[in-house]
């Protein structure tokens, strides 16, 4: 990522306010709209899930400038998700849903540069989560 992209991701996220609940709500709509088959993966109450998602996303966005901290976050998160049976293709679906949710919630603020910045950030997060997932779950299990 470039420093400008990090800045764009953080500042656009900051515009959502301290509790990005609207983003979380929209994200799950977009996600299940794209792939209803993912719904059963979320066994907990969806309202709670949204709070968790928002809190985790906040942590990750804040950690982006410090790679060590980010890796600790995303690897652990990926490791947890490996246990839920999440596949690589699901990461693409999640990425699309996140971009769509951001576009909806940020409106005009989601300009091409901001979009590009989020795509780059998501790639960094997804790749390192997948790294964490691979380390946590031996193949075939």
């Amino acid at each position, binding site marked *: *990522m*470039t*420093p*400008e*992209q*990090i*800045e*764009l991701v953080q*500042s656009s996220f*900051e515009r959502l*306010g*301290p*509790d990005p*609940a609207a983003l979380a709500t929209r994200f799950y709509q977009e996600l299940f709209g794209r792939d209803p088959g993912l719904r059963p993966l979320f066994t907990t109450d969806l*309202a*709670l899930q949204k*709070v*968790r998602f*928002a*809190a985790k996303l*906040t*942590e990750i966005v*804040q950690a982006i*400038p410090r*790679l060590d901290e980010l890796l600790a976050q995303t690897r652990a998160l990926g490791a947890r998700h490996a246990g839920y049976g999440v*596949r*690589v*293709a699901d*990461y693409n679906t999640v990425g699309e849903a996140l971009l769509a949710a951001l576009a909806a919630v940020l409106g005009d603020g989601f300009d091409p*540069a901001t979009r590009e910045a989020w*795509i*780059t950030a998501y*790639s*960094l997060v997804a*790749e*390192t989560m*997948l*790294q964490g997932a*691979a380390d946590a779950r*031996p*193949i*075939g*299990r």
Partner: protein
Amino acid sequence: MAIALQRWPIVGRRPELEVFERALFSGEHTGLVIHGRAGVGKTRLADECREQAAASGLPTERVVGSRTAALLPLGAVAPLLAGGLGRSGSDVALFEETRHALSERHDGRRLVIVADDAALLDAASVALLGYLAAQRIIFLVATVRTGEPVPDLLTGLWRDGRVARVDLQDLSRTHLDTLLHLTLGGPIEAGAGRVLWEITRGNPLYVHELVLGALESGALIERSGVWHIEDLLPATGRLLDLVEQRIGGLPEQARAVIELLALCEPVELSYLETAAPLDVLESLERAGLVTVAIADNQVRLAHPLHGKVVRAAMPRLRSRAILLAQADRLEALTPAGPAALRIATWRLDAGGQPDPAILVRGAHLARHAHGFRLVRRLLEAVPSDLLDAGGALLLGEARYELGAFESAEQVLAHGQRLPPSEQDALRLAVMRAKNAQWGLCQPEVALAINAAARAVITSRPLAEELTADEACILTFSGHPDQALAVLERVTGGERRTRVVRAIAAAPALALAGRIAEAMATAEAGYADHVALGDELAIAHPAMHLVNQVFALTEAGRLAEAEQLALAGADIVAVNRVPVVQIFFAASLGRVATLQGRLATARRYYAEAAGLAQASKFVGPRRMALSGLALSCAMLGDAAAAAHALAERATGPAFGFRGPEQDLAQAWTAVVSQRPAEAARAFRAAAAQAASTGHRTIESWLLHDLVRTGGQDAATRLRELASKCDSPLVSARARHAAAARVRDARELAAVAADFEAMGAMLLAAEAAAASAEAFTRAGDRRAAAAAVRRASVLATMCEGAATPGLMHAAGAVPLSGREREIVILASDGMASKDIAERLYLSVRTVNNHLQHAYAKLGVSSRAGLAEVLRSES
């Protein structure tokens, strides 16, 4: 944070690894074949497959196909063989025995075998591996290079559809960015990321070699946490080998085409068709080595790296012969025109002495593309007695832009001694003054150069421009009042004069608090400059954007200022205009400081200082280091602030916004608990600002004096507010007045004003002060609300540690952990569940909650929910 990993992380290959996993455990597949071009990462992927198999407890083995091993039947697979290679007997028996032995050795578990470069295996090895795979004794992971002939026996293995297949592609731009981020351990400057993409096109092997080579040579370096390319990227020996492998086997005629393109691309297809047989060109295109653009019928190398490597490896005499022949050819076709640049460069590359006239024409063309290095190279090849005034101007400008200020001064002074045209005389004087002011940091010399030129150049539009330029020198050396007085004499309507006038006037007006005029001037200046085009000896058009950002900031329109500065920074990053780049980074730091985003401010200022250091502009560097010290001090980091001040002291003085630079030592004194020294510094700088027309900065200084408990300055602040059309200056005056009489409601209202501007730190301090005043007045309810407001605002200030925040009772921001727990708790989650989710003990969660309650002035979860609602 440089981590040149031996082994790089695997990026963008998870789908392929998933294919491997599914194939391995599906029960239907006997293997996986990985196809792909050279350097795409087939071996790396195959090894990753092997490691994952080993991690899940499967036995693994690795065999490699090669031309030498292929000479010995079964040589490659010797480690698998029962009884070793020397054993005699029939193949069938050998296969059967090997099957039994392997099965026994591995307890019936399938052996995962990577066969790297499988196309190079001998027939017997392939037959054995095929047999073992079909018997489910092994799972075969084979890599095959695209375009390499594959023996029938091998293709037979996967013809039955029981072998999964992946076609590996080069990395996408996004995946390349991710790979670089993970490998370098941090962000990379936009231009450097683009360069690496353009050279490697995502080929992982090239990326690997190029980045390692660049780290080693120091071309890729880290400054202030960001990676930059500072120098030409080296073509290392290993890179040479890699590319040589790809193009080494080409027939002579094809090789000649590649060499020609490497030196002179793009080349017209119509010419190449006369220089090489058509089938040679076709085969090169088919092999993916050259591309033909349909739009213009120009032929280029498909991979930029190939050109780089071929050039480095070509014998000097050979490249010289090609370059000279092409220069002759092009010269015969189009002696003048845009080809002049190419002709001149080729002749220089060939080591020859081109016609000086061609060099100068080429330099003019290169200047239009802002190619200052090339301008310098071309013009330094012209014998100095043949350099005319126009050439001296170009060379002086190029040296200035490249940070060679002393030699710029020499050639510009030399140019002035030649008999120049009046226009060249003007531009030489302007350029020389600019070099003296910005490069050598000698504004008095710049003014003397300007005065000397005014004595000689008297015809009207040019004389007016010189006067406008005098104002420029005054504005940017700390005398905006004098600049505005000088500009009274400039009434001219010439576009170029208007542009120079706007550059001088806009910041001077903004400093005088005449914000609306400053904005209008900067906007008109930009429009005029764009219409004027890119001329010599004049600032970059983006300087007007810098001025707009400044005016917006002085008005307190912080979000707009930030947006414009980000857009402007993008524009100049492409053109590489150092002074303007430094200004945009410093402007972003300045906006972030006022927004209270102090860690961000620190980062931008550090970036500006780094840019200034790299481009050798020590004056603007002083400005950036002042901002760096200021933001560090406001973060409470006295040591870092003192360090930045010490670094600043090693450079020369730089007058632009001089009193603002003094905020740095004043705040460093504040945070070092030397209040008397701090107050003295604020007052001295404010007096300096008052006597030189820096009204908005005087207001900043006096307001900070009040904020840090130094002294009352409400009267002067009100006076300044009446003279400035700036909501920010007005809010500062109201803040100081309300603080003096501890007017709780007015303080809360000012806090809201600051918040609306996005000045969160000032808003938090005013809210905290209002809380204190409400408490004093006995209004506990209003006091609690103000404390909550202050603490919420303080969380947006990225760790600010100013007295106004620290001394306010209770107004302490929530820590990240506390915030996380509060969010979960307010949503009704039980402490036990929160503890489980965050891997904490219930006791720790409850402790955090109690702290948060105390900070937010609530006593229950319901109260938390209410506070969080009022936040959003």
